[in-house]
């Protein structure tokens, strides 16, 4: 795995608080200029991992190597990183300008240079006109941009973002996502972001590390994680998913109740109990291939969700649960989605996956 471009390496890192193991044997490699996300539900250890990389927590065992230098035992002040927190942590009694220049002053910069650098950063985050305001006079999104500028001021080699968008409104969050991503590309700074929001991770990261119970359970590009989730946990955590209890019958086919489904069974053997998984957007009302699976459904409920409609189907002899189908609103306008209407549902062999129960 050792690669010339490896910027940060975490080797067999563990951290316990008393008897509680917050993270267990973490191994990761991050390339220079890469944007990675630690994604997982709260309590999965993602923030602890980030704090260990920053040196804000001391690992129990294992090591952190930045640019081929072992920094495992260095205090945070000897490490090269900038950090942004969910709570912004802006100094309330200092103006925006002073907040951003906070780290520069200590590094013995000249006044004129500091001014130049802060102005540069302010324009980078589009806050030039707010330089003399206090944090409390800014909106949440603006405050977080100040925090970002402050973290970037000293041009750190590594940028750490600890749930930076979680405290913000949905609209602002989407806007900042793009701004942070563009900024990161422009500066080429290696970045690690911690988040529990899968959409955030999907839209921003080059690579995602999905964490659960202190371990990394899958890593890969956003599309790899989405299309090739290696466990039902990830499949349902990232996007939504229909799970249908099934069994492998003697002819090595997947059988859900009375209906036989055509899909790749991988390493499963006859008589294994499994669950069939199909994403709501992968179910169609028209057949596109000869070997598509077909199940007969009856509409039980329709939810209007703006750009698409979520339709709940009852499928007899298949499963007791309702099957969710996401229909783009443009398609939905053509078909009348009335309650109790009967429709045939199609999904391809490739879109059906099976997981162990």
């Amino acid at each position: 795995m050792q690669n010339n471009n490896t910027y940060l390496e975490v080797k067999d890192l563990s951290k316990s608080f008393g008897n509680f193991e917050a993270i267990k044997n973490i191994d990761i490699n991050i390339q220079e200029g890469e944007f990675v996300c630690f994604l997982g539900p709260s309590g999965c250890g993602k923030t602890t991992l980030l704090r260990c990389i920053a040196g804000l927590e001391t690992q129990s065992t294992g090591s952190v190597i930045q640019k081929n230098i072992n920094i495992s035992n260095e205090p945070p002040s000897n490490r090269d990183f900038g950090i942004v927190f969910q709570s912004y942590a802006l100094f309330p009694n200092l103006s925006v300008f002073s907040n951003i220049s906070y780290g520069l002053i200590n590094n013995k910069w000249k006044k004129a240079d500091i001014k130049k650098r802060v102005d540069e950063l302010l324009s980078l985050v589009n806050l030039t006109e707010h330089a003399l305001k206090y944090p409390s006079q800014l909106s949440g999104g603006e405050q977080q941009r100040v925090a970002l500028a402050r973290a970037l001021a000293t041009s750190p080699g590594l940028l750490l973002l600890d749930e930076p968008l979680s405290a913000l409104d949905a609209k602002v969050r989407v806007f900042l996502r793009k701004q942070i991503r563009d900024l990161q590309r422009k500066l080429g700074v290696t970045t690690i972001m911690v988040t529990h929001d899968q959409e955030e991770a999907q839209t921003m990261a080059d690579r995602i590390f999905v964490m659960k119970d202190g371990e990394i359970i899958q890593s890969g590009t956003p599309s790899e994680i989405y299309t090739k989730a290696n466990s039902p946990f990830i499949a349902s955590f990232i996007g939504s998913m229909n799970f249908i209890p099934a069994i492998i019958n003697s002819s090595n086919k997947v059988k859900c109740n009375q209906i036989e489904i055509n899909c790749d069974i991988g390493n499963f053997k006859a008589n294994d109990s499994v669950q069939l998984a199909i994403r709501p957007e992968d179910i169609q009302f028209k057949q596109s291939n000869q070997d598509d699976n077909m199940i007969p459904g009856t509409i039980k409920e329709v939810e209007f969700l703006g750009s698409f409609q979520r339709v709940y189907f009852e499928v007899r002899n298949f499963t007791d649960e309702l099957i969710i189908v996401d229909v783009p609103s443009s398609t939905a306008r053509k078909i009348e989605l009335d309650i109790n209407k009967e429709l045939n549902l199609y999904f391809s062999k490739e879109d059906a996956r099976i997981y162990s129960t």
Partner: protein
Amino acid sequence: MSLFKFADIRRGKDSSDRVGLFMLISYIILFLLFLVLPLGALISKSLQNKDGEFIGLTNYNLYLQEPALFQSLYNSLFVAICSTVIVVVLAFLFSYALTRTCMPFKGFFKLVALIPLLSPSILAAIALVYWFGNQGVLKEVLLGKSIYGPIGIIMASVYWTFPHALIILTTSLSLSDSRLYEAADVLKTSKLRAFFTITIPGARYGIISTAFVIFTQVFTDFGVPKVIGGNYNVLATDIYKEVVGMQNFQMGAVISMVLLVPAMIAFFIDRYSRKKQISLLTARSVVFKPKKHFKVDMIMLGFCSALALIIILMIGMAQFGAIVKYWPYNLNFTLKNYDFQVAGLGWDSFYNSVELSFYTAIFGTIIIFVGSYLIEKLRINEGYRNTVQFFALMPMAVPGLVLGLAYIFFFNAKDNPLNFIYATMIILVVNTIVHFYTVSHLTAITALKQMDKEFESVSLSLKIPIYKMFWRVTLPVCLPPIFDVSIYLFVNAMTTVSGVIFLYSYDTTLASVSAIHLDEQGEVAKAAAMAMLIVYVSVAVRLTHTIITKKVLRKTQAWRYNILDTK
């Protein structure tokens, strides 16, 4: 190999960590020297005979066989419980009026109710002598009973502890969710039922806490029973008599232990109930806003006016007594009572008090604030931090009289290298800081908790040493509570009696102690004058404090005002 060792020593630490560790250890040593070891000396003294030989619990046995001393325990409990019940009821109604009704003139009532904080507890006792004493104006009201005794002690205690109770209860009652009352209203609950099912349960921890605080204050108070107790002995006056009168230090130590135990129990119950209180209000609660209710508002106005009038009459009488020529025969005004003309008890003691208060406020604030910062914001050595936190809470459980006596035993010992501070201003300052440590410490901790816990992390990532960030951010942001702590220390150092009664020397007499001795010598008018001097200084300092705070805050807290401007 040597490289490994180097890395081991440096593991996770940088220079600010090392400074922090050094300071934590310094605090532990200071607390050991000025709190724990003196108390240890007190305990061991209670187990020794006059020649310093260990005799086990013999002194305690002697104590239990002495009916007169036992009577004092009963008396102490009696006045403490009576005062507590009266204060809790009065203060509850008063704070209810302030927080839950639309009674007019709330600001005025709040101000008047806090007046007793500015005076030493003995001022109330002196005022009572003028009102109900042998030559008192209202002597007949007592129907032949003497004010010198439990009646006087209870009345004076109620007066000086009232604001303490009021502060806790007002806080407790203002933490209430108006949604609960709206829900009750919608369910057609009567006002009375809402009061008993929502108001009282919501405030119950505040009430419990108040009861134990007031109980401890009265139970351990020395000044009031000394001045107005007459022949009615309580534990605090017994300790004084044993130590100062009979030089029986061992028995003084034993009685101190008897005083210490209930105070400790009360302290732990209080801590427990305060912790419970916090969890009652969530971030989603909507703060209660009282509605107009003419009848209730008027009844409360009457009640609060009556209490306010009593408070004003008390302090007014003390002032009046201080400036008349010869009570009650010649009521012409004079300033001669302020010209004390009693050796060691005059203006010198007043200046000493001001000096003591000044030093206590300056050094106390610095020590307490830095100490609470170490506990709250350092990320190293949890064990040490917990130790300092425990020590910081301890003084609240130790009555001033007990601490003072403990200091004598510890620092007056010939072989103690710190013996040189005995009978100096230093020991008074140290004792006063320790005595009032806990409340100030908790104020500072609360202020620090409100600051984002990631400030330190941000500073570290930007390679700014923690002390720089303390100076540039923490200190400026925390200025208002720092001012509050300093004023609290100043006023308490001015008014305290029990902490310093054993520790002053001929050169370091204090105003509050002088007032007691003047009263002892029958110079009641001069005692009143001295007590009033303390009030003047307290008021003056409070006013200056308010003005300075406003000016300084406008400069350093511009960001706070800007919040108001823009939102």
